[in-house]
């Protein structure tokens, strides 16, 4: 059974070695916070890793065992339900997003994964009739509380959308937009520095450094998406949410985005919604499988793809539906 599913994880066209997934998984296991309860409640695939216990949802110091940087989750969602008018789009979902790790949300269309992602920076506020219940914390702070300014929240939790949506401004202005509104740079030189650094991190600098004054909308789709990532990076967020960032792109541009996600992982907590299971397998260390508004399974990506606990997960990743 494991043999049958192996090709899914190895069948990658990404520039970094496909064995990376397994390696990440092994390395990551050491750093799992204990509150990852539901899905750690089973035998570990490999021996000699961090002892897993079903523990209270508070981080404990002994998480740092085995030398791995175990720590509290960057963001924690607790029994989140979302309603669009009368219709319930998401049912009682709890999940943690960790620093240094990419969490992928997968599932068939309409399963609520994008809706869930938009809860983390309160983008559902912009949809009239949408109602979110439950608690989401960023570094232990309730993001829906009155003390949390949504403007600051969104500066800390950036987002990249499905369709590249650069502003109809120059490439420079697109990236400088966030730093400007948040007053991150006083001098022009500082701003230029931020723009350059962000474009470099987004892997776009070499392609656009000679034409920063050109319109961002004149770039190719893949470049536009990396521009949007640079734009999100420019405000120095702690978490980056990506809503199917490569679904509108061709395979080469997709590979670049995936490579970029891989590189950004060290710096930001990343949550990515994807339709593409291979992509989830390639870029993520944690995978959450959603179906019909419910979280079916959440665990290490290597486990989800090689040894899922739930039959529905297995049916989905083997392509029986979805």
């Amino acid at each position: 059974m494991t043999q049958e599913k192996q090709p899914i994880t190895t069948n990658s066209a990404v520039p970094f070695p496909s064995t990376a997934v397994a390696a990440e998984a092994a390395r990551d296991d050491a750093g799992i916070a204990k509150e990852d309860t539901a899905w750690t409640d089973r035998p570990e695939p490999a021996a000699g890793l961090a002892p897993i216990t079903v523990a209270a949802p508070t981080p404990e110091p002994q998480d740092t065992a085995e030398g791995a940087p175990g720590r509290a989750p960057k963001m924690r969602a607790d029994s989140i339900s979302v309603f669009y008018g009368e219709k319930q789009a998401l049912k009682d979902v709890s999940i943690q997003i960790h620093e240094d790790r990419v969490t992928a949300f997968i599932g068939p269309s309409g399963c609520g994964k994008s809706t869930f992602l938009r809860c983390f920076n309160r983008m559902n506020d912009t949809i009239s009739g949408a109602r979110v219940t439950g608690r989401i914390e960023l570094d232990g702070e309730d993001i829906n509380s009155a003390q949390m300014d949504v403007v600051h929240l969104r500066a800390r939790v950036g987002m990249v959308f499905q369709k590249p949506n650069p502003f109809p401004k120059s490439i420079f202005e697109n990236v400088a937009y966030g730093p400007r509104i948040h007053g991150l740079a006083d001098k022009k030189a500082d701003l230029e520095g931020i723009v350059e650094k962000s474009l470099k991190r987004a892997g776009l600098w070499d392609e656009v450094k000679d034409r920063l004054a050109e319109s961002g909308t004149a770039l190719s789709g893949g470049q536009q998406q990396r521009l949007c990532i640079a734009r999100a990076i420019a405000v120095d967020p702690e978490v980056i949410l990506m809503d199917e960032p490569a679904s509108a792109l061709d395979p080469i541009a997709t590979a670049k985005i995936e490579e970029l996600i891989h590189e950004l992982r060290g710096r930001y907590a990343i949550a990515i919604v994807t339709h593409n299971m291979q992509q989830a397998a390639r870029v993520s260390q944690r995978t959450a499988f959603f179906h019909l508004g419910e979280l079916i399974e959440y665990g290490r990506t290597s486990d989800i793809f090689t040894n899922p606990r739930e039959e529905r997960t297995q049916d989905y990743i083997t392509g029986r539906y979805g």
Partner: protein
Amino acid sequence: MSLTLALAAVLAIAAAAAYLGRNKAAGLRGGGARLNSLPSYHGGYVFLWAALPPLLLLAIWLPIHNALVEQAVSASPAGQQLPDFAMVREAILTEAREIATGQREAGFNPESAKLAPVYRSTMAHYAWIGGGLAILLALAGAAWALTRVRASFRARSGVERWVMGALVGASLIAILTTLGIVLSLLFESLRFFSMVPPAEFLFGTQWSPQMALRADQAGSSGAFGSLPLFWGTVFIGAIIAMVVAIPLGLMSAIFLTQYAPAKLRSVLKPALEILAGIPTVVYGYFAALTVAPAVRDIGINLGVGSASSESALAAGLVMGIMIIPLVSSMADDSIAAVPQSMRDGSLALGATRSETIKKVVLPAALPGVVGGVLLAVSRAIGETMIVVMAAGLAANLTLNPFESVTTVTTQIVQLLTGDQEFDSPKTLAAFALGLVLFVITLILNLIALRVVRKYREAYE
């Protein structure tokens, strides 16, 4: 036989022929043939062929009819004795026609009574010719179309062609009317420019269109420098009105599209559109009776000695209010056309709603907003009632909004009101003014449409 009767006869023939055609087609189907078109289409086809050609003929005949009758009456023995003086002659002919058609009992001129029977018989004569031709044409059309009713005949596409012809005709009428208006404007303007040099008209700063009736009359030199008029028009319509309409219209559009909850929007938007439904004459007396005195008082309080009760400011303010719905609905459309994804992108970066609007939505919507503003300007400078009532008649070249200025449209009204002789430059100047105004608004509209179209291409 009157032409009305001919008309009824044509319609009756067409109806009967349609019935026959339909029955013939139905009969073919009854006989087992597979019809290309439904029987009702065959009926319709026959009807169109029987009715439309004679109707067209009658439409052309009617205007010719009167000329033919008049000619024949003048050529008759009684008509030969009419006086040669054209005015008297025409008066008698008109009276005779009115007696002949029963519109009046007796004429003022005794000759008309003599002429009436001649008139009556000639009219009947030509009505017979016209009516007869129409009926013949109807019969011929019906017969021809009936012979075409066959199983394989494509009556449906035949009807389709007639429908297309009708649509082409309708649009042609609109285009030809526009062309006619432009040409009449052009020819009258050319007459004017043959009396007043175009350079003097376009660049002169003296406007005093009163012509001397007698050679020794003083003070009426007839100066046709239209610059003060166009300045007044621009000052009121393109400057003061826009200073009012652009911010208010834009802000209300932003509120309606970005901030107002759906319920409030559904109330406010129609309320704003009521502004567009107020007749301009109502705006006019609002400007003249309410706003203008208030503006004059403000001007006097501010120490502007020349504050007039008919000021550019009063007319411009009210015109700006009138234009708000136009600016706001165009801005509304173009703001709503900015993709939500762009707004989301900005909001997700931690921008507030107003920052998003200011820095992303408005710049993206700008071409559409500019297009709307240009259309509003062209509407404002062509607007007449408000400025006639509130702007005054003094052709001043002034920057002081409290002073009275006059506009092109106001002057056209002045030049053409009352009894006029259509061979003096004073009257013809109205056409030249109209022509220049038309050219300006045409250019503005073309630019606006192009800007708006370019913008649409960018987002769809």
